[in-house]
Each structure stands twice: as C-alpha cells, then as structure tokens.
C-alpha cells in the first residue's frame, strides 16, 4: 500500500501522467453522471428509436456549436403547439359549424433555412372531417396561402416541404426556403423576424376539435447532432463512456490477474506444469485472435459480456506470461520466500500471498497501458457489425455512420465525435501507463 501511495506522489513529477489522470477521472465522472441522469432502460428505449420519441427531432443535424464556425446561423428546431400557453387558440361556435383559429407565431432569428417544415394535426371528429386551411404571414406583413389539408384519420402530418403545389406557387423554390427567404437579398438567406402560420379550421360536428403542432426542423441539434434515424447522438456518446471504460478495465484487470496467477503457479511448481503453460502460450499467441472472436460473435451471441469473457480467455496466455515468469523466477529466490518455506507455508499461500503480491506494483503499468487496446477492440467489433445488439456504444455510431456514407456526405461530426472520444480515452490511459512504467522501471527513467 505504501508503495502505491509513494507512486502517486511520484506521478506529480510527470505532467503527461497528470493530464492522463485528469482525463481518466473526467471520463469516470461522465460515466457516473450518465448512469444517474440517463438510466439504462431509458437509454435503451430511446436508442431503439421509436417514432414517438424522435418525430420532432431533425434528421442528420449537425451539433449546435457548428454555428460558431458558419457564416449564416443555422436554425435549431422550432416547435409551436396549439396547446402551448402563448398560442391564442380561438373557438367560435356558429349555428351549424365551429370555427377554430390557431395562430402559430414564432420568432425566427436565423439566416439559414430549416431542414423541413411539417404541421402535425390532431383532429377529433366522428364522421365528417373538419376543413383545414393554412396561411402564412411573413415579418414584412405579406400573406401567403399555404394550402388546404385533407384530413384522414385523427393524427396526421401535413408535410409542408413536400407540397408540390405550394412549391410551384413559390416560384419553384422548396417551401422551407421560399416561405422564409429574404426577398430583398441577392444570395439566398432567410429573413429573421416573427412569422405566423395561421391554421383555420371549420368543424361540422359539435364535439369536433383541431390541434396543430408546427415543427420547423433545424439544421443543428444539441451538443452532438443527430443520426439518420433522428436519434440524438448524445445518448450513445454518453452511454458509450461507461461501456468502453468498464470493458477496457474489466478485460485488463481480469487478464492481468489470471495471467499473474497462472504464471505464478507455473513458476512455483516448475516441471511439467511450467512446460505446459509455456507451450499453451506459444500456441495461443499464434491463434487468429479476431477471427475467433468474430466466429463467437456470429454463431453464439453478440452480448458484450460474452465478448468480454472470450477476449479475456484468449488474452491470458500471451507474451505477458513469459515476462512475468522471468520476474517470478527472481522473486522465487529471495530470502523471504525461503523463510516462508522454512516455517511450512503451503504452496497456495506461497504463490498467492508471497509471490504474486510482490509483482503487483510491477504489472500495474502494463495493466493501464493494456486498457486502450481492449477499448479499441470493443469498438472494432462494433465497427465490424458485431457490437452488442442493444447497448449504444461509440463503435456502433462509427459503424452506422460508415454504412450510411457519413464521410461521402460530409457529415463529419457523426464519425468525429465517437472517434475523438475513443482516442481521448486511449491516450489518457496510455499517458498514465507510460508514466507509471517509468516510475516502476527505473531503468527507463533516465532514457
């Protein structure tokens, strides 16, 4: 314990170690925050991406901070619902009909155009559907007829952006541009100001009612942007952190401990035990690691925990066993081991209480340096399409981005965000591990 404490003190002399340690702690903090703020079931449900969860989120939107680098501010999503407090919905009952007026007013402070404009109608009627018409008022006071809506069913979207009649009326401009464009500007920019979409409905039945929700899908969304299924990438980025960390840490810790134990047993007993361990190691080192992992993933199941088990099993008998063996042989000869033997300590006591603890400080650097390898391995499996079927992970984002041509379409954020997190995680552990290595291996300290 003292040894570990003094090591931590030594770490202060290595700026790279401090950077690494700070990042590792930050990642752990993010993981804890994620587990509390976004419970597992909630995250899984959201990531499954049902229509109800994500209908009001734009598709393939860049992160909001992109606006810092663009000439024209790109809009975020604007949602105006007739049930909102600021909306002045009026219902006038006449002899046979009811007139419903919904002015959907919103501020549009951006110069870029929205991705898409859709109005979701929630209509209640029994036999005769209400007649709905939509008009548009620009900040300059101009009035435009948008169109009429033929009601089918009770909940239906009116996709303004796909209205080809409207597009013809706007001089062949797509509606999301034509409705918002600044008429006095040479280049196509939106005119900032207050717009109103006036929804007027005439209902023919007493109990009939109309509600509308106007959505101007933005070009940017949140801190992370969205993917092709309108899901907020933040969920996967957040959840990827505890998954990547736990996979890397568990794999590294189990591999190291089991390797230590086996190597210790082999060295202590020597003879045929040692011989077998050596031969198994030589064979295991030449086995095709990833193809075997891929086979297990394809034929059994892709759960993260099965993968973890197989990864650990295949990583036990590696070169590390030989390195530890060399160290154990030295330790075996020390006087305190001899003393323990003299008082009659059992073999297991000697191995687990005398030999292995002696090596633990020595293998910690290797353990820490080994973590990024496992983190990247998990990501690699996901990139190959063998990621865990339910968990949102960083590798899965990269996989989906690649298979949807993110790089061809210039959607760099989609690939960059998980990649940057991966490299930051990898670098932090290896910075830390390298410094630990220098502290524990004084031979390297001067070099």
């Amino acid at each position, binding site marked *: 314990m003292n040894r570990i404490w003094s090591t931590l003190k030594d770490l202060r002399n290595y700026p790279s170690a401090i950077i690494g340690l700070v990042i590792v702690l930050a990642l752990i903090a993010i993981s804890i925050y994620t587990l509390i703020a976004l419970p597992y079931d909630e995250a899984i449900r959201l990531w499954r991406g049902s229509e109800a969860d994500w209908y009001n989120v734009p598709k393939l939107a860049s992160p909001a901070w992109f606006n810092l680098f663009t000439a024209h501010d790109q809009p975020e999503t604007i949602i105006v619902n007739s049930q909102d407090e600021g909306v002045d919905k009026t219902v006038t009952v006449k002899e046979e009909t009811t007139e419903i007026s919904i002015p959907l007013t919103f501020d549009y402070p951006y110069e870029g155009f929205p991705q898409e404009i859709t109005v979701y109608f929630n209509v209640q009627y029994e036999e005769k559907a209400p007649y709905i018409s939509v008009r548009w008022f620009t900040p300059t006071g101009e009035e435009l007829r948008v169109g009429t809506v033929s009601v089918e069913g009770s909940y239906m979207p009116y996709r303004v952006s796909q209205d080809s009649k409207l597009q013809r009326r706007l001089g062949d401009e797509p509606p999301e541009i034509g409705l918002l464009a600044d008429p006095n500007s040479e280049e196509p920019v939106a005119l900032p100001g207050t717009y109103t979409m006036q929804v007027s409905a005439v209902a023919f039945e007493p109990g009939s009612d109309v509600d509308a929700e106007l959505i101007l899908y933005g070009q940017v969304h949140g801190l992370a942007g969205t993917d092709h299924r309108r899901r907020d990438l933040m969920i996967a980025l957040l959840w990827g952190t505890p998954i990547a960390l736990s996979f890397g840490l568990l794999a590294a810790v189990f591999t190291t401990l089991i390797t230590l134990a086996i190597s210790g047993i082999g060295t202590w007993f020597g003879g045929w035990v040692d011989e077998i361990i050596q031969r198994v190691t030589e064979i295991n080192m030449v086995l095709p*690691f990833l193809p075997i992992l891929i086979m297990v993933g394809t034929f059994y199941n892709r759960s993260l925990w099965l993968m973890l088990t197989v990864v650990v099993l295949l990583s036990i008998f590696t070169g590390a066993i030989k390195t530890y063996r060399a160290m154990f042989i030295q330790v075996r000869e020390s006087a305190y081991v001899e003393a323990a033997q003299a008082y009659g300590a059992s073999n297991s006591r000697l191995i687990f209480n005398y030999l292995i603890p002696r090596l633990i400080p020595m293998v910690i650097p290797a353990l820490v340096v080994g973590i990024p390898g496992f983190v990247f391995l998990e990501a690699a499996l996901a990139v190959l399409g063998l990621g865990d079927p339910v968990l949102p992970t960083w590798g899965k984002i990269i996989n989906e981005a690649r298979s949807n041509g993110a790089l061809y379409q210039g959607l760099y954020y989609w*690939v960059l965000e998980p990649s940057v997190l991966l490299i930051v995680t990898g670098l932090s552990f290896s910075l830390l591990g390298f410094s630990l290595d220098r502290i524990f291996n004084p031979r390297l300290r001067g070099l």
Partner: protein
Amino acid sequence: MSDASLAIDAQGEVQEEEKGRPSTLSRLARYSITRLLLLFFTVVIGVYLTILIANMGGYVDEIRRGTIREEVGIEVMADQQLKQLPTEERNAIIAERIAIEEQRMGLDQPFILRSFGFLKDALTLNLGFAEEMYSDTGSRQVKLILLERLPSTLVLWGLANLISFFITLFAALFLSRRYGSVVDKIVIALAPTSSAPAWFYGIFLILIFAALLQVLPFGAMVDAPPPEGIGYYLSVAKHLILPTTAIIISSFFLTTYNWRTFFLIYSSEDYVEMAKAKGLSDRDIERRYVLRPTLPTIITNFALLLITLWSGAIILETVFNWPGLGRALYQAIGLYDTPVIVGSTVIYAYLLAITVFLLDFVYAVVDPRVRIGSEGTRS
C-alpha cells in the same frame, strides 16, 4: 494484447544444443524444422478450435437432425400412397428414411469422430461451398473465394510491414544517436498515440485526404473501371497510400521509442565504449556493435507486433474497402455465410503461422547462437 507494447526483453526461445558443434546449415535446418513442427501443431489446434466453435461443440448436429426429421416427415405426408398406410408402418418408413439421410450426412457417427474428418478437410483447405458468396470467377468454392482475395491482402500487408520495419529501425537508430534532442522528445511524447489501431487512423486519414482535401481515393484497390497497362499499377499505388500510412502510423512511434531505448541500453555497453575509443566511425559502431546483438530481439519484437497487426487487417480492409481477406470475412459476417467465416479463420491461422515461421527463420539466420553454435557454452 498488452504484451507487444511494453515487453522489449522478450527473448526468443532457442533450442538447447547438448554437445559438439554441427555445421551452420544443419543447425539452421534443425532449428527451422523444430519451429515448423511446433507451428504446424499450433495451426492444427487453432483449426480444431475453429471447428469446435463453428459446430458449437456438436449443437449444429442437433439442428441438422431436427431439419432432417422435419423434411422427411413432410415428404412422407405429401406422398399419397404412404399416407394411406397404417400409422405404425408409416412411422417405420419415416424412421428408415431418417436413418438413411443421417448416414448420408455422416450424422450416425459421433461428433468427435467426424470433427477429425472436418479437421483434415480444413487443413487441406478443402473448405466446402459458400452459402451466399461467389468468387469473381463465379465459383461457390470457399477455397477459390478466399485464395482470390489473398494477393491483395498480401500486397497491402507485405508492403506496409516492410516499410514499417525499415523506417522504424532507421528512426530508432537515428534517435539513439540523438538521444535527448527535440526530435527524440517529440517521439517519446507521441509514443502513447500507438494505443489506437491502424483502422482508427484510417478513418482519420480518409476524412482528411479523401473527404476534405479530395486528393486520394476513399478506398478500394483500383479506380473503376480499372485502367490498362502501367496505369493499373499507378492506380493501385495511389490506393495503397492511405492504408499503408495508417498501418505505419499506428505502430511507428511506440515501436521507435521501444527500439531506441533498447539501442541506448546496448550503446552503453563497455565494448561499444571500447569501439568508440578505438576511433571507429559511428556507422561501423552501429552496424557491428549495436545492431548485431540487438537484431534477434528486435525481430522477436517485430513478430509480436505483426501478430497484433494481422488481427487489425480485418477491420482496416473493411474501413478502406480493400478487396482482401479481411473484407471477405466482413462480407461473410453480413451475409451470415458460415463456411466462408470458418474458411477465413483457417486461412488466417495459416497466414499467422507462416508469418511467424518466416520471422523465426530470419531470427535463426541473424542470431549467432543458432548460426555459429555457441549455445553449448550458455548455461
């Protein structure tokens, strides 16, 4: 996974020589044959493990038996004549047909016995027929599908690793000469970047050079349609730049740092000081007093590195759409084409073993203990 990065002291195992000093050639031959046998044994075990996993330890047979039973049942029920027979007679006919079918598929023998048959087939590359995939010549034979992809994999990995080895070696020697300089410090600072694998750097390289700058292709091996004559090779060379760079970057800094440290340790030996005192040139000292004794260890280290790199090949080829073995395996996963997945694993087992053997052979050639035979004097 962690071993290759830290351990520079992994000394290769050298066979014990008891007495006498046989000629260099016979020593080399003996060493090589022992290694070859051990590696072949490794391949056999690897392939057998593959078969066990692929057959889920015999579960596949149960599924096959179930399928046969169902098919025979439907066949018999569809037959009007058999349908009119009494139940007992009909059941007897069904049982008989199932037995014939199982015998035809070899299912009457226990799995353990048959697994050895599979092993023989796999070792002789008799890999069966693909379920979904075709070779470019239109064949369904897994062997043809995979062997067709082999050259492109070998071109990429051979080239990348060859360049990587020499660049790293020279960079390490250069740095050990300039120990403590700015370049040296930069390389040390960059060593942790090697924690990211080649495919990861590949994604960044594609993003920068293909998507943003648009100077190099996104992936694939040649332009489509492939140019004729010399243009073909130029096109391949252009497509090779990014994946090769990715492979080199992923190992360069850490390996350079490790080897440089290793050279430095050896440079402080007395006999090097002696050579310096004699006034030998730096080149001579490096070649004769530093490189000679370290080369065997360097090669062992490189072999370990290569083993990890081979695993990365699968993902790197997928990222770059490189039409090699790795990509074939990726496609097979997507199509759930079991025979191709198993076949790829077998081929990879062979490739790894061959790589290790080649490096072992080089090791034997450069290691004086094997070559000249001073092993007897070593304790």
